[in-house]
């Protein structure tokens, strides 16, 4: 199975996102993904790639692509899904960091056992059914079939919207949406609060509640 990881590296508010990228790289090296082959594609969002950016990601199996920041992270994800050929695409926001090795093997196994659909590390029933888009994954063709080009003002609606939320759209299209934690893989009827020790990934939201 060909797996591509998309990581968003915004070139606005550089100090903040550079620090986030450094944490992404360090935690990736400290907590290796596992045995599954994969590639990492860094979306340079809203600016030019410079040598110091390349050095930041040195040691990881990365390639870079540029995006004009239209639709922010989701715009970059949509571009990646259109242009990068793979079986499973893992979309990661800038603030994602890893806390335990073997996370990619867990993702691949859950995907092989449960089939295509949308997956994520944190899923919620309120305010509307949604999967947090700081980390989610699906076959790129599924994202390509989502009927809207996500512009920056539409960013919130894509993730949380009651009318156009991507998780709702995936389910209404006949696929399922799953939450994956270190404890198991859960369909929407079993989504629950993710405890610190069970969280697959950490992000800016889990950071604020002290998950480590």
């Amino acid at each position: 199975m060909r797996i591509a990881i998309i990581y968003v590296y915004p070139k606005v508010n550089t100090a903040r996102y550079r620090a986030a990228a450094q944490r992404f790289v360090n935690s990736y090296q400290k907590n290796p993904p596992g045995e599954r082959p994969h590639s990492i594609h860094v979306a340079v969002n809203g600016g030019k790639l410079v040598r110091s950016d390349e050095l930041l990601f040195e040691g990881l199996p990365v390639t870079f692509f540029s995006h004009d920041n239209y639709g922010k992270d989701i715009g970059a994800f949509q571009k990646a899904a259109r242009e990068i050929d793979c079986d499973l695409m893992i979309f990661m926001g800038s603030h994602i960091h890893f806390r335990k090795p073997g996370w990619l093997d867990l993702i691949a196994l859950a995907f092989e056992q449960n089939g295509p659909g949308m997956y994520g590390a944190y899923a919620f029933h309120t305010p509307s059914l949604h999967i947090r888009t700081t980390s989610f994954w699906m076959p790129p063709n599924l994202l390509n079939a989502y009927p809207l080009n996500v512009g920056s003002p539409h960013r919130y609606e894509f993730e949380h919207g009651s009318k156009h939320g991507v998780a709702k759209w995936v389910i209404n299209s006949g696929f399922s949406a799953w939450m994956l934690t270190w404890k198991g893989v859960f369909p929407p009827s079993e989504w629950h609060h993710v405890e610190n020790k069970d969280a697959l990934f950490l992000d800016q939201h889990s950071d604020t509640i002290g998950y480590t």
Partner: protein
Amino acid sequence: MHSSFETIVSAVWKNRKANEWVCNQRGLALDRDGVARDVDRFNAQICAENGWNKFVMIAGGGGVAPDPKPQAIIEQDKAAIAIAARRAKKIWSGIKAINAWLASKAPGSKKAEERAAICAACPKNKKGGFDEWFASPALDAVEGQLKKLKNKRLKTSSDKKINVCQVCLFPLKVLVHVPNEDIQANMVKEAALDMANVPNCWVTREKDE
């Protein structure tokens, strides 16, 4: 002759790249995505001005209308996704049934030989059948199952003749060994409905026994 959306975008993009100075003066996009958005907006504007509203997607909810994708592409994707979802449900109900049995200590079905002979003679037994969308993960899963089957030393005399059922999309070489209760527990209604129309299918017949 009508050009496709992608052809028009390519042509406009080529034209803009050849006139970079003018584009910069007028603030026109020079990247392909930007050109695609401009072409899409232009089409949407013509449709809206002429009252062809079914070709314009107006989104609500957030109070901001996102860029529309061309209606023809939306309809095409919708049809493709419905087919893909149906096929995925079938394939993974088979994978789950087989995994459930492989994970248990239950022996293989005593009817495997008889089942395999039925499948070997069935016109729905063919090679392939996994949709391109998820061919690779499905094949990976089935490959793992075949390895486990080999460890169990289970086989039938029809193994060389059986492949994938084009109706339920189950890998038959493994499925014929799976106890019927595991198959029924995981079968989705899409597969059950389609299989009911296949004459002599042992999956349907055993369900009623």
